[in-house]
């Protein structure tokens, strides 16, 4: 019982989420009471949250036969995913885009994705990584097509499926080539093989390209981003918000784990990495980051649909996040994780407001926002907070996040990328400010107001207030994140 008990204890978060999934499904089938089901999943998520906090008491170690790694990095992301799922359920409650008689399935699929994500951020073995990645991806395809009667949702599901299957297959080919080169699936063994023997650069570049296809698909970086605007626009807005934040975070998390463990040496002091010889993947990343940012920002300028504009803006933010990974040191990593927390608050908030306005007007045009600031001030002020934070204007959290990312670049003297990023921030101001102008500086055309239920008002407050506070007092979060970038090193 000893070793197995420890394995199960360290895996307890996923087991609790699994039990919540089952219970919520049974309760939805028996009682058909959506409020009861909702509270079941909320309680289940709360139990999982406190369970992750209790897992901090265990020492960093490998478990499940060196397939999974228990370390602060994984625990941070597990907390992150549980919080994002919690807000997704708050968003989906009484939302007209999520069919209320199929709420049990919605909770089931979202919780299944969360379980997959929690396993994915802990995996240090390529098979477990691929297994949990497929769990996340395939259920996301189904979830993006949740509105069966809405053609854009069906289109989103098909596009996501086709693109994801292609990306997954290419990535799997890269993994098998890596296995052929190194003889092992375990990240640390592969790293030992790659750094000890000298391998020609061409196979390594081919492998990195193929891996980037799969990883880049999840991280939504150009040129693997083509699915994102259609999927984010077509999927029901609660699910879009979940995908934009959580799916992207898990992409970055397992990218960090794989690339920083396999393709980088922990040189000198802890917190400094050096890419392995002959394989300058930070250079590839910096080019991809520049292309992603520019493409996302320039495409967002021409959008007439709120969700599509926010989708392109989230692609641009993936570019900003990738900047932090180009400088392979502790500062960049801390900046990326910090930016993820702020990005969750502001992006989820922006999609939340877009979803609430879409619920009222039954479509997602930007022209719905015309003059809305005078009729529904609370929701528009919150939207302005989120938009200004997304641009990176003080005193909101987005500014602090961008400061950390840019200072990591300055410290590593990567000035070209920095200039491109600053130009992109200026470009993005146009389409964010356009929405604010529509809300407050235009006369309303009709008398339609957006009315929020108390639960949704509470959610909006829970998202907007931390965005404000994090722009002024972010020290505790930063300290917590600095202590979270510790991966378990092979013993």
């Amino acid at each position: 019982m000893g070793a197995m008990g420890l394995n199960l204890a360290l895996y307890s978060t996923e087991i609790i989420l699994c039990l919540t999934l089952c219970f919520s499904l049974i309760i939805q089938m028996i009682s058909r009471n959506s409020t009861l089901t909702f509270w079941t999943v909320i309680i289940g998520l709360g139990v999982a949250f406190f369970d992750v906090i209790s897992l901090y008491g265990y020492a960093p170690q490998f478990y499940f036969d060196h397939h999974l790694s228990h370390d602060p990095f994984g625990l941070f992301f597990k907390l992150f995913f549980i919080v994002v799922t919690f807000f997704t359920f708050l968003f989906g409650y009484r939302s007209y885009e999520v069919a209320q008689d199929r709420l049990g399935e919605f909770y089931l699929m979202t919780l299944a994705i969360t379980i997959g994500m929690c396993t994915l951020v802990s995996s240090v073995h390529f098979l477990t990584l691929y297994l949990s990645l497929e769990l996340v991806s395939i259920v996301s395809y189904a979830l993006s097509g949740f509105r069966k009667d809405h053609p854009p949702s069906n289109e989103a599901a098909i596009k996501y499926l086709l693109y994801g299957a292609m990306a997954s297959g290419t990535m799997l080919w890269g993994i098998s080539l890596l296995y052929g080169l190194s003889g092992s699936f375990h990240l640390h063994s592969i790293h030992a093989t790659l750094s000890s023997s000298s391998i020609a650069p061409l196979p390594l570049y081919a492998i990195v390209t193929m891996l980037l296809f799969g990883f880049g698909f999840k991280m939504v970086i150009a040129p693997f981003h083509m699915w994102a605007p259609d999927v984010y626009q077509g999927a029901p807005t609660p699910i879009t918000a979940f995908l934009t934040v959580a799916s992207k975070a898990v992409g970055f998390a397992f990218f960090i784990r794989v690339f920083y463990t396999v393709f980088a040496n922990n040189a000198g002091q802890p917190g400094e990495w050096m890419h392995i010889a002959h394989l300058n993947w930070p250079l590839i990343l910096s080019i991809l980051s520049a292309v992603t940012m520019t493409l996302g920002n320039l495409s967002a300028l021409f959008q007439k649909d709120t969700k599509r504009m926010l989708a392109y803006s989230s692609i641009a933010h993936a570019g900003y996040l990738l900047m932090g990974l180009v400088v392979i040191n502790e500062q960049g990593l801390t900046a990326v994780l910090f930016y993820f927390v702020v990005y969750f608050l502001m992006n989820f908030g922006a999609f939340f407001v877009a979803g609430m306005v879409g619920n009222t007007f039954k479509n997602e045009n930007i022209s719905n926002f015309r003059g809305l600031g005078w009729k529904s001030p609370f929701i528009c002020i919150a939207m302005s907070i989120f938009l200004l934070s997304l641009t990176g204007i003080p005193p909101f959290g987005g500014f602090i996040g961008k400061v950390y990312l840019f200072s990591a670049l300055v410290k590593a003297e990567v000035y070209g990328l920095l200039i491109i990023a600053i130009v992109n921030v200026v470009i993005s101001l146009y389409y964010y400010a356009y929405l604010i102008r529509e809300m407050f500086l235009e006369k309303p055309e009709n008398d339609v107001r957006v009315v929020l239920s108390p639960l949704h008002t509470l959610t909006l407050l829970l998202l907007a207030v931390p965005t404000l506070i994090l722009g002024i007092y972010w020290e505790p979060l930063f300290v917590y994140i600095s202590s979270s970038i510790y991966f378990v090193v092979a013993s």
Partner: protein
Amino acid sequence: MTSPDAIAVILMFTFILVLGLALVGISAVAGRVKRDPTKLSVYECGVPPSGTSRERFSVKFYLVALFFLIFDIEIVFLFPWALIFKRHLLIGPLIFFEMLFFLGLLAVGYIYIWKRGAIEWN
């Protein structure tokens, strides 16, 4: 660039490219058919074809096949467990309850599809 690993990768990519192009290209060039109305019509045992070949059929066949697949994979997972069961039972009863949990999860799924009416045949 002449290391065996590099050559292996280049060779693999070239082979895949050549194979794909050859299969499609040769059949496009050497397998051209002269179209003829009789040759293109649907085969129906020699009689002139009547009606459309694309009839609607019920989705219940697809559902039954899908459920069979899921529960068949569940049984596949039972086999290796059964082989090591007796040996691991000496260590403790955990191995029994683990499989019980797995079967329980699939039982929840089964109850779901039952209550949703997906195994109604009519």
